[in-house]
């Protein structure tokens, strides 16, 4: 016998052992994964595939920790020696090179080579290594089963109950009548929606508005007639198929949401909801520009249009429609045009418009205004429009004009003219700049800056800023400002009062002590900051850049000035001529006492139905404890059912559950579970409006003791 055979036999044994060990670890890993899954399902419902990496990781971990991969042939041989006494603890000799063996060892090796292949492999009993892993897996599985079936449903009670509450009555599918063997409902949405024809076997229908609904029923017995009752009033007969008396069909097109019932012979089924989902027009939301944009002189004459159009089925087309108004007064002219879109629209459900509109290209001049809106149509032909957005270009000529200033209420004419003068000077400087020496131009720019500064400081006085360094703060006292600082102050304060005088102010805040209201003040501040921007650029020899700020300052000033005006139109009046002989005579003889009769207020039409609902609500509260529906209760429930039915035809999702519950109450004679009563109560409570307080005589007994006492006194 060849020694390689023996070695192979050992290797085979090892491979087999390793395979069993790996299998055992895999079983452990699956058990661990099951436990992890069970535990996590208490808090969340993880998708099953998240368990795969957990299983893999735990398998790798178990294999590495157990060190089975490190087991070498030597260890294997030791194990074989233990399991097979026949090997006489000498199988390790097989691993040694033959030439290193002593004679006795060689003899033993030969003996082993003969013996080994005949040894039964089952004595290694590998399968026993799988007992524990299997048991662990079984236990893990049992735990998983118990937890997911019995514990988790209760643990996540809130979640489940919330879901069921939100689902409401619609999700709870009412059972079909017993006589119906099978149902097929075909919903054909309108072609424009692009939705496929849908078939369903359950009765609650939810379809796009305008859908055709084909109802095919198979009854299990022959019935005389089958009809469909829409909203409890509209009856439609179903048609029996000519070749099969058990097959019935009906095609109809519901106009609005509601509910329906099936009638087999004279028996009505439960209520089934019929929800028609209306097609919404295109929703247009515009992010930019703002509803009113003013582009000042010197700023780029373009706007960015960012808008999002969204529809539930498809957008057919969209346009940006613009109107440009130019001119003033009687010479105003309008020009309408469509601004082409940079995106093609052909049936998307969502379109994001990102477009730059160049006002110059539209032919807009300073002073012109652009009005535009977005119009979109969906494929049902519904049109929707966005708000109108206004973009105005600042007109410099308008700003510079003196119209209205000479004659109007002139708050600050002198200064205002100065700002205008500065702009004229800047423009003059810019015009002459190419022919001027650089130093000369810079010097003129700087001088203009000084003028702008002076103007700013003069305006600052209106805001109570008394000196250059004190914009908005700081304080200096001057002679004659009403503050007594004491003459000849020494370094050391003479008294505490003097010391306090130095540290505190005894008068109002200068900023508040002006004639302007807060809004005017805010605008003045904005003007000052524009003036400051202009000044900064003039002083840094950039008159071109200063010009827009100077214009802006001028515009703000003009607005400020105009905001203080008010206009009251003339109203003509014509009085009745007085009779001089009757005046101041005090004679009222001819004046009769006026007597009028008020028109009676009409009682709301549903007042009686409301009173029934109110009484039903009271009755149900008692029914909860005595659980016995009497005749009065049945009558009330029947009347209340009518009101709920009317409500359910408008909002089936909200009231259909109550309608079913009221049926069950009637059928169960009051011996129903509390849930039914609560559902009906909730619906009635929602149907009833809040009653307004009204005075009423207290529904109580008289104060007998007091009355008795009063009577006794009167008697005496």
């Amino acid at each position: 016998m060849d020694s390689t055979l023996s070695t192979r036999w050992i290797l085979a044994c090892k491979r087999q052992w390793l395979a069993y060990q790996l299998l055992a670890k895999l079983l452990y890993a699956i058990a661990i994964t099951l436990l992890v899954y069970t535990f996590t399902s208490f808090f969340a419902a993880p998708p099953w595939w998240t368990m795969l990496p957990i299983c893999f990781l735990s398998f790798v971990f178990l294999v590495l920790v157990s060190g089975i991969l490190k087991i070498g042939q030597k260890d294997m041989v030791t194990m074989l020696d233990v399991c097979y006494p026949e090997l006489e603890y000498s199988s390790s000799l097989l691993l040694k090179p033959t030439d290193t063996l002593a004679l006795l060892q060689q003899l033993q090796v030969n003996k082993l080579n003969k013996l080994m292949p005949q040894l039964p492999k089952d004595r290694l009993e590998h399968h026993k290594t799988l007992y524990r892993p299997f048991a662990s897996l079984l236990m893990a599985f049992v735990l998983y089963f118990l937890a997911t079936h019995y514990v988790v449903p209760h643990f996540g009670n809130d979640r489940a109950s919330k879901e069921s509450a939100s689902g409401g009555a619609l999700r709870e599918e009412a059972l079909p009548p017993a006589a119906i063997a099978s149902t097929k409902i075909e919903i054909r949405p309108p072609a424009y929606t692009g939705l496929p024809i849908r078939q369903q076997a359950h009765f609650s229908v939810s379809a796009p508005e305008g859908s055709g609904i084909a109802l095919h029923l198979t009854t299990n017995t022959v019935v005389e007639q089958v009809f469909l009752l829409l909203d409890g009033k509209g009856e439609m007969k179903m048609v029996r198929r000519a070749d099969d008396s058990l097959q019935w069909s009906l095609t109809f097109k519901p106009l609005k949401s509601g509910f329906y019932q099936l009638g087999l012979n004279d028996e009505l089924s439960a209520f089934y909801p019929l929800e028609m989902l209306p097609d919404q027009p295109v929703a247009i939301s515009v992010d930019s520009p703002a509803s009113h944009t003013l582009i000042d002189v010197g700023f780029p004459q373009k706007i960015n249009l960012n808008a999002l159009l969204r529809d539930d089925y498809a957008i057919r087309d969209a346009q940006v429609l613009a109107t440009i108004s130019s001119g003033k007064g009687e010479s105003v002219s309008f020009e309408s045009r469509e601004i082409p879109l940079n995106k093609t629209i052909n049936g998307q459900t969502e379109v994001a418009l990102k477009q730059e509109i160049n006002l110059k290209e539209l032919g807009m001049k300073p002073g012109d205004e652009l009005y535009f809106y977005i119009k979109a149509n969906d494929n049902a032909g519904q049109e929707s429009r966005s708000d109108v957005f206004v973009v105005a270009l600042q007109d410099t000529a308008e700003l510079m004009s003196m119209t209205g200033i000479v004659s109007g209420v002139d708050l600050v004419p002198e200064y205002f003219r100065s700002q205008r003068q500065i702009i004229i000077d800047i423009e003059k400087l810019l015009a002459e700049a190419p022919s001027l020496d650089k130093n000369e131009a810079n010097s003129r720019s700087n001088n203009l800056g000084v003028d702008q500064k002076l103007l700013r400081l003069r305006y600052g006085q209106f805001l109570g800023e008394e000196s250059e360094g004190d914009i908005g703060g700081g304080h200096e006292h001057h002679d004659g400002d009403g503050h007594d600082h004491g003459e000849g102050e020494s370094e050391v304060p003479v008294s505490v009062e003097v010391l306090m005088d130095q540290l505190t102010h005894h008068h109002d805040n200068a900023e508040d002590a002006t004639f302007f209201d807060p809004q005017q003040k805010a605008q003045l501040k904005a003007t000052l900051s524009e003036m400051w921007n202009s000044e900064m650029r003039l002083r840094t020899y950039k008159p071109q850049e200063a010009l827009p700020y100077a214009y802006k300052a001028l515009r703000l000033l003009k607005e400020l000035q105009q905001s203080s005006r008010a206009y009251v139109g003339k109203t003509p009046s014509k009085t009745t001529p007085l009779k001089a002989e009757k005046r101041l005579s005090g004679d009222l003889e001819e004046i009769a006492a006026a007597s009028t009769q008020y028109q009676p207020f009409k009682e709301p039409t549903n007042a009686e139905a409301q009173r029934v609902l109110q009484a039903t609500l009271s009755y149900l509260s008692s029914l909860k404890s005595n659980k016995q529906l009497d005749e009065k209760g049945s009558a009330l429930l029947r009347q209340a059912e009518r009101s709920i039915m009317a409500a359910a035809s408008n909002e089936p999702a909200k009231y259909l559950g109550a309608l079913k519950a009221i049926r069950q109450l009637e059928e169960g004679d009051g011996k129903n579970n509390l849930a039914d009563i609560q559902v009906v109560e909730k619906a009635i409570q929602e149907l009833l409006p809040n009653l307004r307080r009204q005075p009423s005589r207290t529904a109580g007994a008289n104060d007998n003791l007091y009355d008795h006492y009063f009577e006794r006194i009167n008697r005496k």
Partner: protein
Amino acid sequence: MTLSHILFLFVAFAVLVYMLVKENKANSRVPLALRYVASIFAVLALLLLMFPVTYRVSVGDDGHEQQLRILTKGMPGQEIRQLIGQPFVFSADSALSALHGIQFIEDWTSFSAQHPGATIAIHGLGLTTAQLQALSGHPLNYHAAPIPAGFVFCDWPQHITSSSELLVQGTYHNLTDEAVKITLLSASRSVDSVTVPPKGLHLFNLTYGPKQLGNALFGLAATSGGDTLYQEQLPVTIASPERANVVLLAASPSFEHKFLVNWLQEMHYGIAFRARISKDKFSVSYGGGMKGNLSSPLRAATFDGVDMLIADEAELIALSPSEQRLIAGAVQSGMGLLLLAGDAKGASLLGRAFRFAAPRNAAADGLVEMSASLGRHFPKLNLPVSKVIDAASDQQTLLHMDRQAVAATLRYGRGRITATTLMNSYAWWLNGDQEPYAQLWSLLADHTLAKMGKQVYYGHGPRFPTPFVWSEIVLQLPEEDTEIAIEGQFYPTLQHATIPSLYQLSFRPEQEGWHTLDAQGAGKSHFYVYGKKDWQSARDYAMMQATEYFARKHAYPEALPKDDLARDMTEKEVPKWIYFLVFLAASSVLWYASRGYNQNVI
């Protein structure tokens, strides 16, 4: 148990484990078992120092010979066990007597006769009125049980109209360490709620404008952290509001009157409105089926069938003295008068009942905020308050403005007069605040209109009638021999002992739920019989208070302090020095065992 206590327990446990492990490993001549015991005792002594043990001892009523003790429900078991061996202990509760073998008192009259003059100590929740009456000849002492947890008191109107508010007021005894949410339930839905803080007795108010009509059951639930602790039922009979006939007399047409008339018309009230437009010239309007003659001078027939007169004080002053007396007579015989004081100078005959004063300080912006009882606030109103009411003791103030009354009411014969200095409440209506407008005028009118007075059912004793317990129903009947049937069965009535216009009947209900009381010819009334377990805390607390009141009236001559249970049963603490000694001894053993010469070093 606080967090520090829990931490201390943990640390003590950890120390004990450490000591036991250490002793297990250590070599010592002292036997391991002894070391274990010493370790356990040491830690236990430490624990007991932290949490001392107390025990209750009975001090006894040494001075009183032959004191009878009557044990009732609600008495702590520990106290009962301490009293079992003593002589003259009886029980008023059959369950207690069966459980502890205490003699049960069946016949209270003979019990009282058997022990003439004996002093009696009542323990627990107390006795019923009939039982207490039987003991009236004895000096009594009452050892009250702890106040039960839950709704110990609750009151609400049992008859209201559907346009008025249901007001529930009560007291909740919270024994837990957590806040409890009290919810008013209508149709199984929460309509108002309030949270009471942990520990102690807390008052609560809940309101709701009911949507029901007829006999309705509302719910009152106490919940804490998702658990429902108590749930009780509030039976209320809700009637449709009755329409009233109103006459308005105005010194001049005004917006206030215009809006008031419109509002009254909306409710289909009968209205007759007269506004003076010049001297002896009036503008008169009628509506809602009212017909009358408001021409000057007013006649007695003008006020026939009128429920309320709303009149300007200036107009009343302008009326002749005979007309004023006519109005006063109508009010005395039951009509309500709502007096709009405004800024009239002088006082009319009925206006003299109120004293008006200048307001202390007017609001700077002219806006005033008014509040009614229960802290109900109205939105701010531009109200030129020229005067406020200096309410006398017989006048009930209804509306306040900066703690000064702007509306008050008083009784005047059978009717009521309500005066208000409010002037332009219609500003609310213009602002769209119709609700406060309706609330305010309803409040004023409710206190001016006389009660319906048609109700047959007047009251019930006990407050919560239960099946198989006798209860007294008090009725007001138009005639003495009116037949009374409850659920179709006739009952005899007796005239009330103190108020001759009232009658009472004894009734023993056999089932819970609504009962209909039919007074032949005088209409029907409804009342509710509660379940055996309903309002248990409130019933117990009521019994405790009744017993306490009775016992105070029949106390010992040398009466013990009211809450004498503490003296009777005192709590004593095991002295701490014992634990300290045990700790010292155990530590000594452990110390001795750990010495080097005691260790078996191999």
